[in-house]
């Protein structure tokens, strides 16, 4: 016979050791690893460039995104195409990613290189953390940087999508 039940657990009774404050960060690829992942067995020659004011204006107009940095980290790929490292900053996250473009400017592949959540001052401040500690708890809430598998609301990829649009406009204006 099946027995179903709801178990009510008031938050104050949760063992404090269970709850953690987490600032998730992950490094997936270095530049060299990202190059080899997107363009296996190719060679890369740096072709870094700095955008002029006119180019920045035109890119912003075409992609409807702000150009935060005029320096573009781009490599020419020996078999054709481009390898670019870009970064986007969201409200809570800082992401560095690699984008491989085919010779015709279309996207070949995108790989996240580093991802870092940033909740800033509060999370590192013990007084802020103290509000989550129940009256019976003896240990303060600890900051745990090793948590890597999280289920729960995460932020949309809007910033990366905007970054890709900006990179594609950059290709049209400055690389083609």
């Amino acid at each position, binding site marked *: 016979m099946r027995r179903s039940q709801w178990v009510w657990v008031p938050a104050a009774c949760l063992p404090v050791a269970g709850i953690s404050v987490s600032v998730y960060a992950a490094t997936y690829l270095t530049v060299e690893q990202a190059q080899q992942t997107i363009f296996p067995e190719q060679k890369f020659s740096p072709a870094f460039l700095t955008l002029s004011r006119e180019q920045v204006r035109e890119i912003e107009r075409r992609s409807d995104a702000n150009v935060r940095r005029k320096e573009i980290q781009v490599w020419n790929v020996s078999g054709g195409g481009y390898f670019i490292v870009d970064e986007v900053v969201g409200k809570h996250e800082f992401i560095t990613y690699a984008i491989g473009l085919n010779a015709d400017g279309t996207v070949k592949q995108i790989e996240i290189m580093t991802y870092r*959540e940033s909740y800033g001052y509060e999370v590192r401040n013990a007084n802020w953390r103290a509000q989550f500690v129940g009256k019976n708890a003896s240990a303060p809430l600890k900051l745990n940087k090793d948590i890597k598998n999280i289920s729960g609301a995460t932020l949309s990829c809007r910033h990366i999508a905007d970054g890709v649009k900006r990179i594609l406009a950059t290709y049209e204006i400055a690389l083609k």
Partner: protein
Amino acid sequence: MKSHLNEIRRARPLLGTLVEIGAAGKNAAGGIDAAFREIETVHRLMSFHDAESDVSRINRASPREVLPIDHRTYEVLSCAQLMSRLSAGAFDVTVGGRLAEEGFLPRPHGSESFDRNASFEDIVLLSDNAVTLKRRAWIDLGGIAKGYAVDRAVIALKKCDVASGIVNAGGDLFVFGDSQPVHVRHPEETSLVFPLGAIRDLAVASSSGCFSEHREPGAATDGLIEPRRDLRVNWQRSVTVIASRCIVADALTKVVRLAPRRAKKILSHFGAQALVIDRRGVRVFQPTENEAQSGVFGSMCLNRSHPESTRGSNCLSGSSL
């Protein structure tokens, strides 16, 4: 728990979120590549925004027009229809129409209008992976396709002989092979995480309205509409479901929120468990102590005022189906 030193992880922006795949073993890199390609395929087939997707073709279709669709889209629609029947219509993919009216989705390509009387009952699945609609409808698979993509990615990894890994699509995840610790994020205090314990061969999906772009002061709202009463659902709690397939976990996070009275029965039907986190605390639902999944929340339930709380093993394993 085994060491994950030989696990490699990659992440790509897909499905409107960040998809992370971890795999251990000698064909890990090849498996990860194949898994991402499968996710891209699911995205292409089921995107509301892509004019060539199966979803867009369905949304442009005239009543009684017979549409051949990919077997993957057919599988998702079959599961969606089952969820609709079990929840008496609280879960309904034809809610795409109202989502478009509310501004959460654009008008589908090539379609001017939808029939306001349309419901899941107007979707007819035919043999040979074909579908037809009795009334014009705009379907949105956003509440179920992400979980399905995770399941397909796991299949792709296993086909490449990857013995152990994890696929995490923006918080909807599946762990197989070696167990891994999984945490759930608090819906409002985004840096707080609760441990679920060690998970193996199971899916975990979570749903909350916190990061919606349509934010009204004082209440988190997102595009979750109760179709039968046309109400926008406001809520500040998150629902986490643990099930043997991610498509089921994903869909059930909506069912638990939209059909709370039927939720227990529906969770039992799938042998799934749910966890609700809100301002007042954490509520756990476990279908039965006979299931392999019992006792997972032992460490969370234990507190001084309830000494009889279940204290089970701290590794949660799915049965191999």
